[in-house]
């Protein structure tokens, strides 16, 4: 009367069912902590984000031009739109260079050829600080470091700029 087919005993059946259901519940419990643990890896860092500044690479010449754009910035309590500016030009090696206009002395805004007496230099209106075209501070004027340079990237012919980084001491 014995059946050839391997019967599943009551005990085995219960074992399988309980392991299955238990495993399922354990997985359900674990999934959220695991997702949370992995989350920082998946998150894109906002610090290194580059923003499209609305300037085509073809429009960049050897003459520095001022561009303005805005980025979202979370600063403590506030999330706000921050306006940023840069002086952009092509240097002798045909590389694009974007300088921050913030004077390294006390933070005023410098401009290219801002003074008639000092052509071909960046000029700070506050204390007559000056920088050469390559951003190096002119010795003998108040600033003690060269202008910061923006991180940059060219995508589809458009210029993208990130954060301004200090350069090596001149």
């Amino acid at each position: 009367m014995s059946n050839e087919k391997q019967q599943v005993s009551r005990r085995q059946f219960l074992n399988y069912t309980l392991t299955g259901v238990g495993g399922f519940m354990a997985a359900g419990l674990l999934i959220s902590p695991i997702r949370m643990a992995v989350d920082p890896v998946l998150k894109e860092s906002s610090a290194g984000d580059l923003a499209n500044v609305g300037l085509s690479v073809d429009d960049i010449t050897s003459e520095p031009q001022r561009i303005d754009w805005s980025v979202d910035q979370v600063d403590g309590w506030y999330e706000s739109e921050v306006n940023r500016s840069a002086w952009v030009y092509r240097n002798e090696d045909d590389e694009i260079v974007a300088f921050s206009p913030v004077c390294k002395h006390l933070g005023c805004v410098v401009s290219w050829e801002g003074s008639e007496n000092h052509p071909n230099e960046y000029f700070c209106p506050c204390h007559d600080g000056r920088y050469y075209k390559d951003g190096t501070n002119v010795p003998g004027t108040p600033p003690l470091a060269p202008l910061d340079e923006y991180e940059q990237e060219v995508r589809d012919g458009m210029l993208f700029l990130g954060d301004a980084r200090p350069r090596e001491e001149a």
Partner: protein
Amino acid sequence: MKWRKNDIQQYVQSKEYIDTILLPLIPIQLSSDDDAEKHASQSEVMNILANEIEKELTGRIMLAPNYHYLKSADKQLESKRLNGWAEDMKKQPFSHIVYITFDSSWKKHEKDISDNLLWMPAVQVGEINSKEMHGIIREQVGQTVELIRSYWQSN
């Protein structure tokens, strides 16, 4: 520089470079609905304007806290109070104090004030965040910066 802890700390260390106070004069009046709205809107624009000027010339200008007064107040008394503020500020070596305002009634009392008064006509074109408003403010900032620089050059 602004009226903030960090900026003041920096000011104390580099006093010799920061010799100018920018002080916005802002009228308030809540008793009449129409005027209140106008004053609030002008105060908003003035704050933006003052902040932008400060941003351009951070290293030489201290933006003082706003001076608020009742629109209907006696300007002679207000000038006296203002001169008191200026006197205290000059105990630090601030050689230029520049008041900036949209309120034309100060113009008549310019002689009572011991320092430079910059009155500019208030313009309000639609929304404060609109493109044209940005353009107008940029333009006003540029011209004001030029004017302040001319004060610096005169001595």
